[in-house]
């Protein structure tokens, strides 16, 4: 059985100031999956990625990429990794073609103009290949960052906040690109603030906060396990307070008393909805519309982080 594409064991990072950015992180990522690392600012997401990529030195622990230790076998490990950092960091005075070719060479790959061409075409950069980076728009610069990270055909790609500050079109393009990469067998690890992005794309989600990995779970399973559904009843007449007969139900008044919201577990055998509707009928509480929705990954994330705090 092949080793996981990424294996992280007991990784801790304490800075000289005494600040502990990561505390005994354990994580295994399987080949070909899309993994989303969620966490608030300062949670330790970028520190973890930086350690894996060799930019930051860990205090203790072990990291292997496809079985290669990032310390002892750093060449083999790093040659498999592509990194798109959060900030746009480019040599603004060189051309798109040159900077992408530079990255390929840096990772020890022979020149392959045909591959670079296909990469630039794929990222809608081909027309800009002879333009200097400084002449490009912000979105184009971000595409160049991705092209550079993919220039050496990595098997493990880190996207650190890839869609932060980009327009909707580029965001959708990036989602499509990530899916294409996954189809080609590339493992993608992304950090994001856009929870819907993780929900939409990731096979698994990890939640990190305060340097601790709070959970790692399949996105769908997490949604099933922790996801609540909401039944929203739009009332015929505004209600000032919840009637005493409904006091024992997980019900809240919203929209200035115009809506009654009932939270329930979608996986439970008895959701309680029929009984609730009967009770409302008996009490003469009329409603003109109803809607059900499930809680988003964002709700789950917030509740997890609040629980950890």
């Amino acid at each position, binding site marked *: 059985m092949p080793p996981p594409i990424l294996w992280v064991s007991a990784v801790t990072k304490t800075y000289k100031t005494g600040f502990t950015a990561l505390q005994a992180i354990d994580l295994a990522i399987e080949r070909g999956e899309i993994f989303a690392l969620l966490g608030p600012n300062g949670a330790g997401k970028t520190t973890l990625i930086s350690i894996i990529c060799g930019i930051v030195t860990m205090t203790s622990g072990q990291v292997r990429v496809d079985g290669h230790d990032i310390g002892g076998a750093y060449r083999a490990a790093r*040659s498999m*990794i592509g990194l798109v950092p959060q900030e746009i960091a480019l040599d603004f005075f060189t051309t798109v073609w040159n900077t992408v070719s*530079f990255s390929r060479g840096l990772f*020890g790959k022979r020149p392959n103009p045909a591959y670079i061409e296909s990469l630039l075409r794929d990222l809608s950069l081909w027309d800009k290949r002879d333009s200097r980076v400084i002449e490009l728009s912000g979105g184009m610069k971000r595409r160049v960052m991705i092209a550079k990270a993919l220039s050496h055909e990595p098997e493990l790609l880190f996207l650190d906040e890839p869609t932060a500050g980009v327009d909707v079109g580029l965001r959708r393009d990036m989602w499509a690109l990530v899916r294409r990469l996954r189809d080609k067998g590339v493992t993608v690890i992304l950090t994001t603030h856009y929870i819907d992005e993780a929900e939409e794309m990731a096979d698994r989600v990890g939640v990190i906060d305060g340097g601790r990995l709070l959970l790692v779970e399949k996105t769908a399973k997490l949604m099933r396990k922790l996801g609540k559904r909401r039944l929203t009843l739009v009332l015929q007449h505004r209600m000032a307070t919840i009637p005493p007969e409904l006091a024992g139900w997980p019900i809240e008044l919203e929209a200035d008393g115009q809506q009654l919201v009932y939270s329930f577990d979608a996986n439970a055998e008895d959701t309680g909805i029929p009984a609730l509707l009967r009770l409302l009928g008996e009490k003469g509480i009329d409603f003109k519309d109803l809607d059900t929705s499930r809680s988003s990954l964002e709700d789950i994330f917030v509740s997890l982080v609040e629980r950890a705090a």
Partner: protein
Amino acid sequence: MSWSSVNAAGIWAIYSTEMARMVRTIWQSVATPVITTALYFVVFGGAIGSRIQQVGGVDYGAFIVPGLIMLSLLTQSISNASIGIYFPKFTKTIFEILSAPLSFGEAVLAYVGAAATKSILLALIILVTATAFVPVHILHPGWMVAFMVLTAVTFSLFGFIIGIWAESFEQLAIIPALVVTPLTFLGGAFYSIDMLPQPWRTINLLNPVVYLVSGFRWSFYGKGDVGVETSLGFTALFMAICLAVLWWIFRTGYRLKS
């Protein structure tokens, strides 16, 4: 580590990119030092040289040629190497170098190699320029090239250290401006230390640049302020110190890795 595991493509990527920067900034890289050197010849060779005539049996105009070349070689090696590594730090593209399958030694080889190549090319251009003003003959061409390469590599290593240490453009300029340039001007580029009265002659021997200029001048005219072995030894010692500092930077990740 076997030769097959050397990341030659990575070294070449950095080296060729740094050389391309020289072409991109051709006026700044080549023309400015050439014009400055030509002005030195006009001022020191023409105006002052007409009064001094000869130093140690060599026409003054020809006497200052090795010193002028060494002056450019020193300052350009430091400048090229320091900006070479500082620029990716400034633009934050250093992450790419740190995350590449490239050893620290390979990165140093690429940056220092490019900086040294640029300054040697410049030194050769200045040498050719000098021949337009004064007759220059080289007694030991092999030694001249050896001194040129040794000096360029040593001071490129020194510049690389400055580039890693610097956290602003001001810091990048401070050591060349406050230490290197004064030492270079007081290093016998425009005079022989025999021309100085005591105790300045002895004090001048504490200036490491004296040994570089002396050795380089010896390769031209067979005469120097100090013995050629002393010059070589001093340059090699400085190179060893620079390599030791770089080794420490590699071990600690000083100002490169947190």
